């Protein structure tokens, strides 16, 4: 309400200034060519100065004087009748125009464009009183860390929050800082591994694998680390070893553990015999209390998905990668990932296609080409045609 009062005053002030000016009516100039005449008179005076200083010859000065004089005469003779003072009718029309136009234009435009209901929100005031606003709490922590970049506990606290918000680059940095400053722990290493996997579209990269191995070394029973290491084997096409690893997880976990269903699916996908699914689905609340298994979000998403749906999602991701590679084939990492992904999906034909396409950019006798061929052998593709 207070805002509207101020806006109304502002509008009224602007309209009033203009109305008063109109009503007073400017005094018409005595002679509308007076300004011009003054200019020419000054030119004459300047000419006189120049002549006295000897900057201009007397002959030239004479010519110039005649010329300026002609201009002066024409201006003086041309002077038109004085401007009319404002006519009453003109003033009234202009006044009505002002009174109508100012409020109508400004109010209608402001009502369309403005947000009168929103107060100002300076950051300092918001940070002083963040309430339950997660983003503000994070911003507060970030400010603290910007000033105290060696506060490992702060980084440790932020890292999983970043991960959940899918700010993966920030999450990676936070995890690495926390590990550097506070030391390694199974949670930090697994978190870092998951961040790296999420950042590379679900592929267990070498960095991620190392993180999980380190995590497993610190805490040998950690099912989360074991799960991702098994996944790494699966993605590398080492199906038998992967199946054995998944089966080992299943054996070590209680039968009602929330990650069991996912593990069983992977056993099945790698050619093993899936155990019957647990009798009751685990409620999400219980999942979040899980003992350091795959993150609750992952699990709940995976639980809600059928095997076919998940396969569909992965296929979509792989296809977008394939499209990218067609546009930008000069990327060996991309080809390796694409071939491996097709192999994981069990699509030998596409995998061979990708291999051949990759070899077009990176010939088999080059370093990169050899990597492609080695991978193809590893995932069981026929490489007879290309190695010769």
């Amino acid at each position, binding site marked *: 309400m207070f805002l509207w009062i101020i806006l109304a005053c502002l509008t009224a002030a602007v309209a009033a200034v203009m109305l008063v000016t109109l009503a007073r009516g400017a005094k018409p100039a005595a002679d*509308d060519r007076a300004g011009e005449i003054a200019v020419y008179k000054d030119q004459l005076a300047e000419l006189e100065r120049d002549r006295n200083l000897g900057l*201009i010859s007397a002959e030239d000065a004479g010519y110039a004087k005649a010329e300026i004089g002609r201009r002066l005469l024409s201006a003086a003779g041309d002077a038109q009748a004085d401007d009319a003072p404002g006519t009453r009718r003109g003033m009234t029309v202009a006044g009505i125009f002002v009174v109508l*136009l*100012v409020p109508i234009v400004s109010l209608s435009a402001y009502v369309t464009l403005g947000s009168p209901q929103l107060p100002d929100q*300076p950051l300092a005031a918001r940070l002083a009183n963040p309430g339950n606003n997660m*983003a503000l709490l994070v911003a507060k922590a970030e400010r603290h860390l910007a000033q105290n970049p060696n506060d490992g506990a702060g980084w440790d606290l932020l890292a999983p929050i970043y991960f959940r918000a899918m700010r993966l680059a920030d999450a990676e940095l936070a995890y690495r800082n926390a590990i550097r400053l506070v030391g390694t722990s199974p949670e930090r290493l697994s978190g870092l591994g998951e961040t790296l996997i999420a950042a590379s579209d679900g592929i267990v990269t070498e960095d991620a694998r190392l993180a999980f191995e380190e995590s497993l070394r610190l805490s040998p029973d950690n099912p989360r680390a074991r799960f991702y290491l098994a996944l790494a084997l699966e993605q590398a096409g080492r199906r038998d070893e992967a199946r054995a690893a998944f089966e080992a997880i299943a054996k070590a976990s209680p039968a009602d553990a929330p990650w069991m269903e996912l593990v069983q699916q992977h056993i099945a996908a790698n050619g093993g015999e899936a155990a019957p699914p647990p009798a009751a689905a685990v409620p999400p609340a219980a999942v979040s209390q899980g003992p350091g298994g795959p993150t609750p979000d992952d699990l709940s998403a995976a639980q809600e998905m059928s095997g076919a749906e998940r396969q569909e999602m992965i296929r979509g991701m792989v296809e977008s990668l394939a499209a990218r590679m067609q546009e930008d084939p000069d990327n060996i990492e991309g080809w390796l990932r694409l071939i491996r992904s097709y192999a994981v999906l069990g699509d030998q034909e596409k995998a061979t296609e990708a291999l051949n396409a990759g070899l077009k950019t990176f010939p088999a006798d080059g370093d990169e080409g050899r990597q492609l061929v080695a991978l193809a052998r590893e995932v069981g593709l026929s490489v007879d045609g290309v190695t010769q």
Partner: protein
Amino acid sequence: MIIEIGHYALVLSLATALIVSTVPAIGAWRRDSAMMGLAPVASLTMFVLVLIAFGALTWAYVVSDFSLRNVWENSHSLMPVVYKVSGVWGNHEGSMLLWLLILTFFSALVALFGRNLPDTLRANVLAVQAWISTAFMLFILLTSNPFLRLNPAPAEGQDLNPVLQDPGLAIHPPLLYLGYVGFSVCFSFAVAALMDGRIDAAWARWVRPWTLAAWTFLTAGIAMGSYWAYYELGWGGWWFWDPVENASFMPWLAGTALLHSALVMEKREALKIWTVLLAIMTFSLSLLGTFLVRSGVLTSVHAFATDPTRGIFILCILMLFIGGAFALFAWRAPMLKSGGLFAPVSREGALVLNNLILTVATATVLIGTLYPLVLETLTGEKISVGAPFFNLTFGLLMIPLLVAVPFGPMLAWKRGDALGALQRLYVAAGLALVAGLALYYVENGGPVMAVFGMALGFWGMFGALADLWNRANFGKLPFNIAWRRLVGLPRSAFGTALAHFGLGVTVLGIVVVTTFETETVLEMQLGSSADVGGYTIVFDGMRDAVGPNYTEERGHFTVSQGGVAVADTWSSKRIYTARQMPTTEAGILTFGFSQLYISLGDPMSDGGIVVRVWWKPFILCIWGGALVMMIGGFVSLSDRRLRVGAPRRKAKPVPAAMEPAE
């Protein structure tokens, strides 16, 4: 609430602009002094309202109010306050608001200092200014509104483009806009005069201070932009013939031509139609520059956001104003009375030559800038028109102009004496050639053409001094009398001499640096050294550092000459954390007019780092010359002639136009 008041003030200024666009113009037509009298007051109101809007936006930036989308997109709470403030115009929406602020500022100046103008002329000028303001207010409110809100507000902003986090952002855009937008006043004067159907010598005198002011600011703005690109981008280049640079250079060339033709018109009432046309063209080129830079046609650090509706909107503004003005010109110009006659060899003749060359040069730059864009639109083919084209065409055009510059002020009006002028200049010419040769021997080993180039630079400088020397008549009169004459010369004479001298300095800098600069790229290890430009540079290793919103790796270099350490500098590579964007901060050392420029490249696997070292002899002359030109502009602005012509309307004294000091 402050933000909403600012938003409302902007909307209210639109309503005011609509009134100034209509009422005074009708008043001028009906010769109704009350309606005309509304123009100055309403123009001032308009300026105050836009100032409130701009102030509100600045406040939102300073307190990091991320409920404003514009602040969230372009600011960060951890930035130093100075960048928060300059960040207001470091983005599309904010910079358009700055543009508008300066436009209304010039309207307000005309309203305040234009009391010596005839009523109808002033009313029409302010009305035309308001038309331009209205167009840009609509543009801002409809396509680029900086006052749009976010609810809920994000907790942190997305940071300002790191390249723009530099003191240069605080100076370069406002100066450039003062120049660009200043030419709008000349445009408004031209259109108003065409509407009035009356243009005379007095008109030229009234337009000249505005032209001079705009030209001076544009000179400074372009020089500042060039220096900023030089030290920030890390390539050691100072001019790239990039379309964005050309966009600012074209109005400068046309404005320079306008400055000179207005002189002829003021003195001789000749070149009237041409001057009006130039005034229209100069601002049209400013608008074209805005269109090129802001529509997303070009990719550059200046094209903040590409949005097709904005491009189309600016294109419409462009067509409306340029098309409208040229149509009016075609209709009214034939009715203007033509002015004085003059012989080919005369001051007027020299100024016509100046105009001829400058307009052809402008056209050359225009073609070089637009041709690739047009070709790409029509055929999809991408070509790049770069330095070779411009050096060959523009460079060649400049040679006769530079040769002619010292002659201009020496020639008499109406009919001059070329032989006499030459006699008065032979000392300057001889000195220039000697100085060029001397510099050649000092720097040793450049191509022969460089001698002529350097001589051309010195020619400009000595020619300007010779002009003052001859006017004061040193050598013929006793020294103290000549000195008194020199002091008594009008300030515009000093302004001319300074501007021409500055041009010579800039030319000298350009020629020397292009000819004699050296570039060394080498891999440096801790303690390794390089010899560049007579100095020895020792690399003392890298160190990590943390700034308010960036981290950097910086290398320390010690510079010695003849075994004695003379200077040291840091050169660094920064990563701005919010955008994860790297920038380079070159280490620059100044020795006299020359500079040593050290830029870091990529680190090598063996612990070394690639370092680029440039020796830039006389490079500061390029911008120093621009600075001298700018000073010349201000000196000329302070000339008393620009203040006369005020009819005594009221008892109280009329404020002096533009410059109070005598």
